[in-house]
């Protein structure tokens, strides 16, 4: 809401990857409006804590609903919104620290439920807002402000984690390609189940990986980014594992399982089994 609200004083650093992700989400919401006719306020954006979470305040144009909550809890908040109001489109925006570290405990249950929310994770491999501490995706051995002698944990591969936990739609993208990213986000929104769009969104201040991702021919750096070939079969988990194990930054849809019911679908089948009784009838069970 930055353009409309001079009081709001948060700014991303110039060149921050999150600008591109914001653009992508704006595109995706507009695409959805055009596809479905549902207004922007049909979207609820649940934001984590950190630089990336501020995206919910920085969206331009027509405003969606938003929740900017507490650190690490975007997924269960989003689940609550979606379970209460399945007709809403629920989007999570969070960073690698929020989502994979403090919030890591919520990924497995949400994947098992196949809750129909779309999570856009901005991975910059560092805690930016607290000034450069190591995160789960920081490379092992890296010296950061909180690892003065080098990080002593293996870095996490989020794509492999999502596959292992059973997320039913997994895409990978780069903040420098907002149009491509918007397409991946839209596909996630349209997918009836849990969707993860994991985005490399570099932190220009504490972990600038732009050059590594895009490559630099002059300096002989090959790009880490590569497009997932069209022949990749995203319905095959085996193919998805093989793909993510190739390393680098694949762009595209890695895995998509359309055979599972979403949480909302399973709620429907439970509902049809439950007996419907009024409060008076419920009290009758205790009457004597």
């Amino acid at each position, binding site marked *: 809401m930055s353009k409309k609200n001079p009081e709001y004083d948060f700014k991303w650093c110039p060149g921050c990857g999150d600008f591109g992700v914001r653009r992508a989400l704006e595109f995706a919401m507009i695409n959805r409006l055009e596809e479905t006719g549902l207004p922007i306020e049909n979207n609820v954006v649940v934001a984590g804590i950190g630089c990336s979470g501020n995206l919910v305040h920085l969206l331009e144009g027509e405003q969606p609903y938003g929740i*900017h909550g507490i650190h690490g809890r975007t997924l269960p908040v989003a689940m609550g919104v979606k379970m209460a109001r399945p007709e809403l489109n629920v989007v999570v925006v969070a960073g690698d620290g929020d989502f994979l570290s403090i919030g890591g405990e919520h990924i497995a249950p949400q994947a098992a439920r196949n809750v129909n929310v779309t999570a856009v994770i901005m991975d910059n491999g560092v805690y930016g807002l607290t000034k450069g501490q190591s995160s789960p995706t920081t490379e092992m051995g890296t010296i950061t402000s909180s690892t003065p002698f080098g990080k002593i944990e293996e870095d996490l591969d989020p794509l492999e984690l999502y596959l292992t936990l059973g997320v039913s739609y997994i895409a990978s993208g780069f903040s420098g390609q907002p149009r491509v990213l918007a397409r991946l986000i839209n596909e996630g929104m349209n997918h009836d189940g849990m969707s993860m769009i994991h985005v490399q969104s570099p932190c220009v201040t504490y972990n600038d990986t732009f050059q590594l991702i895009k490559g630099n021919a002059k300096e002989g750096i090959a790009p880490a980014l590569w497009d997932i070939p069209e022949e990749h079969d995203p319905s095959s988990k085996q193919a998805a594992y093989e793909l993510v194990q190739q390393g680098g930054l694949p762009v595209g849809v890695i895995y998509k399982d359309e055979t599972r019911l979403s949480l909302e679908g399973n709620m429907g089948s439970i509902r049809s089994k439950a007996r419907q009784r009024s409060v008076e009838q419920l009290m009758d069970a205790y009457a004597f």
Partner: protein
Amino acid sequence: MLMNDFVVRFAGEGGQGVVTSAEGLAQASTQVGYHALTYATFPSQILGGPTWTQARISTEHTLSSGDQVDVLVAFNEEAYETHAEEVREGGVIIYNADDFTMTDPRSFGLAVDTLARSTGNNRAANMVVIGALAQLVHMPQEYLEDFVEARFRRGRDNDDEIISSNIEAMRLGRQNAAESGFVLGDLAPPHPPDYQQLMLKGNEAIALGATHAGVEFYAGYPISPATTILLWMERNLVGENKFAYQVSSEIEAITAILGAGYAGKKSMTATAGPGISLMSEGLGLAWMAEIPLVVVDVQRGGPATGLPTKTEQSDLMGCLFPAHGDVRMPIIAPGSVEECFYGAVQAVNWAERYQGPVILMSEMSMAERVQNIPRPDLSKVPVEERLTYEGGNGYHRYSGNELSPMPLPGGPGAYVANGSEHDEMGDTTHLPSRHIQMTERRFSKLKLLEEDHYESDNTQAKIALMPWGGSKGPVREAYDALREEGIDIAWYYTMFLHPIPPKLRDELRAKELVIVPELNYQGQWANILRFHRVNSTPITQYTGLPFKVSDLVVQVKRIMAEHTEEARA
């Protein structure tokens, strides 16, 4: 001798029928018009472990499970050894002769399992016990038969067989008790109430109340002694537009109901102390972002894992101030099974009325207590709805210093519900003027929850007695006993602990001394009253068990005498 009151304690090992016997006796008695109240305590394990339940049968409405045990039913020797000294003078001990023998002159043996088997119904052991107990107080056999008929007539092919074996089991118990020669007296005939009744537990009353109040989303995580609310909701709150669900932790429970509350549903969870600790940050978010939700804390003993299956009132400070920063949660603490129903309705009403979190504090002793209550007349229990925003876009959700309409996602008025300090649109800000405005706004809304009604009695006395929550029952009985002795003392009680009804606060301030019996070490409510500039002093107990009326009478007299001494000095 005509008895108006009959207290039986059943003790043994989990699985021996300790609970079913007590609840059976309570149900048989209420069926014919007595009042009944049970108290249960369980071991924190699935099989075995020492357990006991107490049932109090009375011709009048009862407030506590009683501390004069008339009969002890000891299912094993350990139970006898643990509980024998609680049996009053002239009381009787029935021991399970299938398990052990003994020579206590107050006792007689009852081969409960052997007698049950002889009827062809191995599951009728508790009926043998109930029959024997009925004989001790000369409760007519037809009362028992009516109960068996009502309980087991379910339209099954073998109904007759089951009913006759249960009646036979009762007859055998009765016969054995008669042969023992023990008699306690004659239980006075009941005065059946002229209104409809329910027989239920505190947790069931909370679930019913919340459902009446319109809760449509429930998320919970299993924890003693709150689990039964989750199970009830999963069976009864699932349907069109409503759902109840077990999530993966208390952190998920609070954040999920927060999401649902934001999305427009009346939402609730129930937990116990450890869950309250985990919900702390989520409660702060609900307070900050102004999202209605209800958290039920069925207190057990603490801290940490503490005493999961015992009762205590030690979460009050934790519930009032669960989160960091300037927060003070609205608290409703019912004091009986009946109040559990009305308290739950009001907790949901409050959450919607002031748009924020409300904590309903119950206790293990009420959660698992079975009690007969007047059936609520739902047409007289108002249900409140949230003030919702109905204008166009560009709305400033957090404008002003008071409550403002809440937009519904999907419709106009999009805003960010923000846990960071925010401006009127919900965007993050660090301006001092905004933090002042929003802090005052959040606290000002509490005024909407100030109620007028509270209990009071003999209000001209200078010293008052004021319990809270589940201690209400035994403290009221102690109060009645003190008044009967001619002691000049006032009575005050409310389930609205925060905000406290202002008139009540003013009355309490005018007292020389307010004595607060409560089940914790620190005297938590007495301390809160001191915040309110009330001269309060606690009577504390931290045994994991409820108060005994006789102990309270002694302690109140002691404190009153000390106060008089001090006044003289």
